[in-house]
């Protein structure tokens, strides 16, 4: 009996040690290859890291599903909006001609773009689904300039790892890794279903990220920052979502 329990104890101890050591090595490797999300601390860090890392390794640069024109939702659902500020209303009254997006951080040329400038770049369109974490969804044609094109114009420095993007609503800002930022379907979208992007759907400018849930597709974009460290922003969890209790990575 004592022999058996001693053997069990030794085997158990060895397994536990190997497990902890293995976990340590795995964490190192994951950090090196950018597989650890900024909200990895806390109770749910293990699950979040597993989800983010496995999806990054498994999914890589695959394209979000695109749909046929006939599958476009008859009425693209405008979700509840943050209260629009006076500044927004003034810009809206002027037809958004003064709307500007500044791009700064780890870029060669800090720049500021008007909507007209963005529209002068080669545009792309995608018929993709917008799905909310609540469970509802709709399909629309999104028209805009790929974010990668804008990033190429300003020149991203090699040490850059994330793009942080801000809404005119100060409580809504998000960030994505460079894999998502350079993804061909990540748009600065200014049009929907053949016309200007309605304010209810994020007009005049929305960052469209079809491989993640709707809350990562921030509405009313005014500012982009390229960075190598998310700790400097807000509470250091990567974006506003984890500060409100939601996951930073929303691919699932």
């Amino acid at each position, binding site marked *: 009996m004592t022999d058996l329990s001693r053997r069990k104890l030794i085997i158990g101890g060895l397994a536990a040690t190997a497990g902890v050591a293995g976990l340590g090595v795995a964490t190192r490797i994951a950090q090196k290859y950018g597989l650890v999300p900024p909200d990895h601390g806390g109770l749910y860090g293990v699950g979040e890291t597993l989800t983010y890392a496995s999806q990054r390794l498994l999914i890589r640069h695959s394209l979000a*599903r695109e749909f046929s024109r006939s599958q476009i939702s008859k009425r693209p*659902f405008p979700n509840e909006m943050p209260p629009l500020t006076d500044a927004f209303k003034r810009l809206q009254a002027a037809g958004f001609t003064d709307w500007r997006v500044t791009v700064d951080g780890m870029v060669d040329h800090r720049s500021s773009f008007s909507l007209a400038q963005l529209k002068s770049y080669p545009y792309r369109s995608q018929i993709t689904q917008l799905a909310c974490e609540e469970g*509802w969804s709709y399909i629309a044609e999104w028209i805009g300039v790929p974010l990668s094109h804008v990033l190429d114009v300003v020149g991203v420095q090699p040490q850059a790892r994330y793009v942080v993007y801000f809404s005119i609503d100060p409580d809504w800002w998000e960030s994505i890794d460079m894999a998502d930022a350079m993804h061909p379907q990540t748009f600065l979208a200014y049009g929907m279903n053949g016309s200007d992007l309605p304010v209810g759907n994020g007009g005049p400018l929305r960052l469209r990220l*079809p491989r993640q849930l709707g809350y990562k597709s921030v509405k009313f974009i005014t500012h982009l920052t390229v960075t190598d460290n998310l700790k400097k922003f807000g509470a250091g969890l990567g974006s506003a979502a984890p500060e409100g209790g*939601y996951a930073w990575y929303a691919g699932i």
Partner: protein
Amino acid sequence: MARMESAHVPLPACVPTSASAVATTTATPRHSTLVRVTHWITTLCFFALLISGFEIVISHPRFYWGETGNVLTQPLFQLPIPSSRNLVQTGYGYVLPDQNGWSRYLHFQAAWVAVFTGLLYVIAMAFSGHLRKDLLPHKADLSWRSCSTTIANHLRFARPSEEEAWSYNLLQRLSYLFVIFVLFPLVIWSGLAMSLAFVSAFPLTVTLLGGEQSARTIHFFVSLFLLLFVLVHVVMIFLAGFRNRMRAMITGRAITTQTITGESAAYKEERI
């Protein structure tokens, strides 16, 4: 009622009533360590997934079929419950607090643990003989006569016989196999089919289910089936003798009473 006493009487509860019967109790191995550990981890995960899943559902208690669905489209059905968002017209005059943040974190973490545990269980069961010995139906049990007896006993809430208490009967085997090889894979599949990133790499995951909203609806119903299984499972444990069944799943050993004589008489008497 004899059945009420069963919670206190070790299984099989053939308490001899005639003086001629002699009973001996022994603790005999019932469940392996691996079965017990994976059983309780899965139990924990199930309740974490159930609670967090319910919290996620109440943020939009409407279900659809096809690729898309929202409050502007016709639902397949709507659950008659209040919602945690003001988007959905529920008929209730209040909105529940939003719990989606931690619910989603917990849901995926518990899903990871459940998947790893399930894999460990399935791989181990294939090698240990657990699958063949305890879960795959015996040829003899599949005969019509045997099937109907098992089903009839089940419907009459008959206590398991001595040999049945040692192993799983046909209905148990089939329901465990169904949960392990049909419901669990289906709930994981339909869950993954809702992941925008996952289906970008593996689009068939969602198209085979008829679309993202169909996957969500399927996920909901499979979860209900799993809940139904757990409820029946727990009821059966109470009927079969709660203490001894729990003892077996915690310590690995069940107390068995062997009666030398008068068994059938006692058994009959108890059922009356």
